[in-house]
């Protein structure tokens, strides 16, 4: 079974600082990491490889620095890695991104091995949309299975796959057919520590790098900024909050004031019977 995982290198938004004037991301304040959701996708692919045999290919679109993310994926157990990198991809929204990645997956299918299963993380922490995975599935015309929390079984001979998909109030058990695409929830697994052989392999690993002209048949009008229907027209600070009053005085006085506020509407308090 050939499993392909789409990953992205992202700025660690958790500690990101923004330029107070331009509101642009201050890149110096962040480090580039593998999108945390994608590490779960790679982990799941590697676990499937261990269960059913086959190989794991990782694919990313990004700058040449994404090599470090590819090496990280190899540490986690990926066998091959491809980066599509070109100025023409820059500024892509989710529609252009799903097109670019789908074209690369088709090339991998032609030249490496047919892809049986595409795995994506639930979303990225910088784009925060979750739209690229389902978009790739539509481009490849394979079933999209989003928000998967468990892969129950795959029958490699019939291509039947059974998964659990998260719902608001539980989950559903779905049966589908390979090739298909799944996006995985973080809860699907715990990412294991890299093994020593994988670490050694990753240190020497060089991913394959493709530019636009390496991808036969790609329509350059559908790439990057040009191929993106959405544009960011402006950024602004979040709405100014209404608040700011602090209670002064001793702790006893502070506590008293809050308790009074809480006790003013006793019907909101659900006392234990």
């Amino acid at each position, binding site marked *: 079974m050939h499993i392909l995982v789409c990953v992205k290198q992202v700025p660690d*938004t958790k500690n*990101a*600082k*923004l330029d107070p004037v331009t509101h642009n991301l201050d890149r110096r304040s962040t480090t580039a990491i593998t999108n945390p959701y994608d590490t779960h996708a790679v982990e799941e692919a590697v676990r499937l490889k261990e269960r059913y045999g086959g190989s794991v290919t990782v694919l990313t679109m990004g700058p040449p620095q994404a090599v470090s993310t590819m090496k990280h994926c190899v540490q986690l157990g990926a066998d091959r890695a491809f980066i599509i990198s070109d100025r023409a991809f820059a500024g892509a929204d*989710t*529609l252009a991104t799903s097109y670019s990645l789908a074209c690369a997956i088709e090339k991998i299918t032609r030249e490496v091995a047919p892809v049986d299963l595409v795995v994506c993380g639930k979303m990225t*922490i*910088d784009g*925060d*949309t*979750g*739209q690229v995975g*389902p*978009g790739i*599935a*539509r481009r490849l015309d394979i*079933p*999209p299975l*989003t928000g998967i929390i468990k892969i129950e079984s795959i029958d490699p001979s019939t291509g039947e796959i059974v998964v659990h998909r998260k*719902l*608001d*109030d*539980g*989950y*559903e*058990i*779905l*049966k*589908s*057919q390979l090739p298909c695409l799944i996006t995985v929830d973080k809860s699907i697994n715990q990412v294991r520590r890299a093994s020593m052989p994988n670490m050694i392999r990753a240190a020497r690993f060089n991913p394959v790098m493709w530019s636009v002209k390496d991808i036969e048949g790609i329509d350059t009008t559908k790439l990057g900024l040009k191929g*993106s*229907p*959405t*544009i*960011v*027209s*402006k*950024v*602004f*600070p*979040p*709405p100014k909050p209404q*608040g700011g009053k*602090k*209670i002064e005085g001793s*702790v*006893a006085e502070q*506590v008293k*004031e*809050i*308790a009074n*506020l*809480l006790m003013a*509407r*006793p019907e*909101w*308090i*659900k*006392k*234990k019977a």
Partner: protein
Amino acid sequence: MEAIEERRRQRELEKQRLLEALSQYRGVWVFIEQRGESIHPVSLELLGAGRKLADKLGIELSGVLIGDQVRPLAETAIAYGADQVYLIDQPIFREYRSETFMKAFVHVAEKYKPEICLFGSTINGKDLASAVATDLKAGLTADTTVLDVNVEERLLEASRPAFGGNIMATILCKTARPQMATVRPRVMRALDPDYSRTGKIIEERVEIEENQIKTKIIEIVKEVQEKANLEEADIIVAGGKGLGDAKGFQLVHQLAEVLGASVGASRDAVEAGWISHAHQVGQTGVTVTPKIYIAIGISGAVQHTVGMQNSGTIIAINKDPNAPIFNFATLGIVGDAFEVVPKLIEEIKANLYKEVQHV
């Protein structure tokens, strides 16, 4: 010179053609997400928001209702503001599936050409919108929290938190139609239903057979496991990184216990493993609007505040006087939670006890 002039004319012509093509698209659509007998609240909220957009643009507001034996819900959608409802009512749409719902939505969208399509940012709403936008080659903005239109250019202005919520970004879609967005639940406001409103129900049939569909639902399992009950709670007590460790987080549970409140948490507290993700409030958790929100040891990163800033009264307890949470707090205490909260628990217990004595 002539060549430059010619190119300029070409560009003008192309722009004209694009505008003409785009102008064929009319109407604001809302995907009506249903669960059998009822409409998901977010769809009613979107009908309220969509009504405003449609009125500004001077066009109709339509619901798109896909399901099996769901016709009565079309009337509900009209009561909540829709002028008309596109109804696709066939047994194959009994349960939500990407493959079937997408085909149905794309079918009506290609036929009637909407200008704007809104979906709730729910598990299925996001799934559907992503697939539909790809097929329609449309622009899609995720997790919108502010919606408006530029009437002159007929552009949807969809704003959303970006970069982990540190900033808001407004997204436009100038070159493709429909303009699509998913919108977070509990941000927009539903209109009061008016059951005397009348509207058109346009029934559509989609040619689709079960044997063409690869994905089958074997079973739907309702989870018996823990629910955080954040969405209905009158009072929420939430804790963050400032509580130090899992043991410190117990303080939140103790205060919630005496108030009969639900327990919320910041992303940091959830990621540290002090409490499950079901309790997470904020951009990557749930949005809540309780009567009272008590934030303990939460600094107030935008990631968190976008999920709770519309609460009735916000009380913040934090050691750092410069913590942004204080800007949101109706009442704030700069102090040590481990000193303040136990005293607060005592005080409330004493008061509640007093009340019982009166009875």
